[in-house]
């Protein structure tokens, strides 16, 4: 008579009740991620289209499409990176959601639902949120562009450009489909849920071992070796011809893909190393264990942030290294106008790749939040045993710091390497005025200001990522959590 009556039962129309899962934690973040990537795509397509239209309007220039083509290719590449990061985030989110739904899925299996049917349902939900996010992003991006065109026209020649066109649907469709695919990939665990798990008393499996996949390991090593070889080859070739940068580009692509594949093996030791920094107190050790509770999940999460940090750092270091290289080859400080141009280009590129970093950040916040929600009972136990609210707060913050600090350091190192290799392989062979000495070999130029901004942004992300989970965690009353 006591507890049962306290639960309010709200009647809902059948149609709305079926969409109840949309309110589940994690779905909102997936919608947001899909919306950001779609809006980003819409803006990229519109912006490149707009620039193309303006170039066409310049007399004597109109016949050459090369520049427009290059800008278009660059835009596609940036969009691909953003969608890729979004896919990692979404797959992670769904695998976390599935972990939290184990009991319900087990109950469905007990009643007679098939594992495949259950998995298909999760994927369908991915399709729905993906489409919803894409629609929001499509509308948002188009509205922003419609509002910007009149402003841009004042800066340019104002050649007529139609914002609303069928091409804008492409990123929306791409994002919807990748979200669907990512939800499918993230729902693999559904197949492992047994009907028995619905029955009370079964011990909660709260950790997961890293799965060994020999085929994947071989592919990773091969890709990695090829990637590094191409990077080195690019530098060497770059001492002779500027074409070295193309070789190095593929080297970067291969080596980073290898790294993403190797993340579940590479990241946990790095995370553990970061954990050492926090000392041996109970909160630090609990946080370290939590950060590694689901090694694959944390690794993929960290790799998203690594990618964002590495890309931003890459463009900053490349720009700085180009300046160093030009100075070394020319034997004196380069033209300020040239430096200005390099800086502007780097700034635009950094702003564009920062979108991927934002998507990764959304994923991180989301992962930590769901992690805390799913650990309610454990937090209740810890509170009962004497973990103070302040200790809970420190624990959650340290947990976030594990991932962000590891990803930050790793991303900075990678970004510096890639940026330097890019600059070196592109311009190593090119003689510059007034000294015209070539080939030139330089150490990476490190733009400390940008590094400082990246570090500050990561610190802000850590605090931000910890806010919501901390509030949820400290709100857990021991009795309430233990009674579940």
């Amino acid at each position, binding site marked *: *008579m006591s507890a049962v009556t306290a639960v309010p039962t709200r009647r809902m129309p059948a149609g709305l009740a079926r969409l109840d899962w949309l309110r589940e934690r994690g779905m909102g973040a997936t919608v947001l991620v899909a919306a950001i990537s779609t809006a980003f795509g819409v803006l990229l397509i519109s912006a490149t289209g707009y620039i193309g239209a303006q170039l066409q309007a310049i007399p004597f220039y109109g016949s050459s499409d090369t520049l427009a083509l290059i800008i278009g290719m660059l835009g596609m590449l940036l969009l691909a990176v953003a969608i890729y990061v979004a896919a990692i985030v979404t797959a992670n989110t769904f695998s976390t959601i599935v972990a939290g739904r184990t009991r319900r899925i087990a109950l469905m299996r007990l009643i007679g639902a098939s594992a495949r049917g259950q998995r298909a349902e999760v994927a369908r939900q991915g399709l729905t949120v993906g489409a919803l996010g894409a629609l929001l992003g499509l509308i948002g991006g188009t509205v922003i562009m419609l509002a910007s065109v009149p402003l841009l026209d004042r800066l340019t020649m104002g050649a007529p450009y139609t914002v609303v066109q069928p091409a804008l649907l492409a990123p929306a469709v791409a994002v919807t489909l990748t979200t669907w695919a990512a939800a499918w990939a993230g729902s693999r665990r559904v197949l492992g849920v047994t009907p028995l798990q619905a029955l009370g008393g079964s011990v*909660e499996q*709260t*950790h997961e071992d890293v799965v060994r996949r020999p085929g994947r390991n071989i592919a990773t090593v091969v890709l990695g070796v090829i990637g590094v070889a191409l990077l080195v080859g690019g530098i060497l070739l770059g001492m002779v011809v500027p074409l070295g940068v193309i070789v190095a580009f593929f080297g970067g692509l291969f080596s980073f893909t290898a790294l993403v594949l190797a993340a579940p093996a590479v990241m946990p030791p790095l995370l553990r190393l970061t954990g050492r920094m926090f000392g041996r107190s*109970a909160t630090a050790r609990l946080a370290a264990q939590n950060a590694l509770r689901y090694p694959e999940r944390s690794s993929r999460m960290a790799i998203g942030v690594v990618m964002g940090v590495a890309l931003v750092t890459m463009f900053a270091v490349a720009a700085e290294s180009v300046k160093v290289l030009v100075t070394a080859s020319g034997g004196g400080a380069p033209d300020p106008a040239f430096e200005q141009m390099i800086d502007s280009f780097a700034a635009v590129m950094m702003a564009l790749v920062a979108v991927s970093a934002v998507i990764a950040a959304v994923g991180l916040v989301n992962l930590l939040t769901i992690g805390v929600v799913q650990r309610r009972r454990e937090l209740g136990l810890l509170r009962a*045993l*004497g*973990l103070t609210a302040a200790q809970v707060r420190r624990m959650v913050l340290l947990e976030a710091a594990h991932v962000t600090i590891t990803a930050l350091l790793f991303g900075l190192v990678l970004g510096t390497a890639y940026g330097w290799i890019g600059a070196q392989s592109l311009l190593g062979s090119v003689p510059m005025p007034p000294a015209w000495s070539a080939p030139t070999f330089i150490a990476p130029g490190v733009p400390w200001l940008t590094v400082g901004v990246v570090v500050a942004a990561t610190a802000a992300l850590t605090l931000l990522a910890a806010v919501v989970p901390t509030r949820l965690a400290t709100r857990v*009353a*021991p009795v309430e959590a233990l009674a579940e």
Partner: protein
Amino acid sequence: MEITTTDLGLAARVQHLTKTYGAGAAAVRALDDVTIGIRRGEFTAIMGPSGSGKSTLMHIMAGLDAPTDGRVWIGDTDITGLSDLELTILRRRRVGFVFQAFNLVPTLDAIGNILLPFDLDGRTPSAIERARIDGLVESLGLSARLRHRPHELSGGQQQRVAIARALATAPDLLFADEPTGNLDSRSSREVLALLAAASREHGQSIAMVTHDPVAAAYADRVVFLGDGRIVADKPRQTAEQISAHMLAAEVAA
């Protein structure tokens, strides 16, 4: 001068305790003017059917929940007005817990769980405490299991680790909430015998909430709760006597 809990030979006591959930017409009175003391060095069982208020009583006594009205002492400390932080530290240092399930932190191994109250306190056990813990690990048969994580332990082993953790700090009072609720009968007997031995041989004060007459039969004293009130308070009983009492109460209701 007020008479203290210690003067009364009690490890903990509550006075005129009332707990109400909800408000107005929907209000549920889980505890209704309960006054009771848990005697030092004794193994006390708190019996009652579901909804009798026994878990609520234990939660409030242990500083896990706040009463609507009345006062609570653990040792000589009046915990009624303590802040969340003070309560947390009190639980950490002076109260031991054994719950029905999910007693252990899944990411820590057995010894990590046993030492958790010390770690949370930011200190390592003293030589005396260390000797006490070693003795507990030995007598609970956990020596070979110290490096195992909870999911690698059987239900009975998990409860034994929980008992070791609860006893490690030599608490004023150990609270056990249906400690055998998830165990088979053999593991149940083991766990109950261990609790009884801790009380008999080491003078540990224990309050155990249960609805199982067999479990309650291990206790020195059995307190019966019904509808938020204490309906009987008896010395050691056999399982048959306890069952008979419960049955009589059921028929009367």
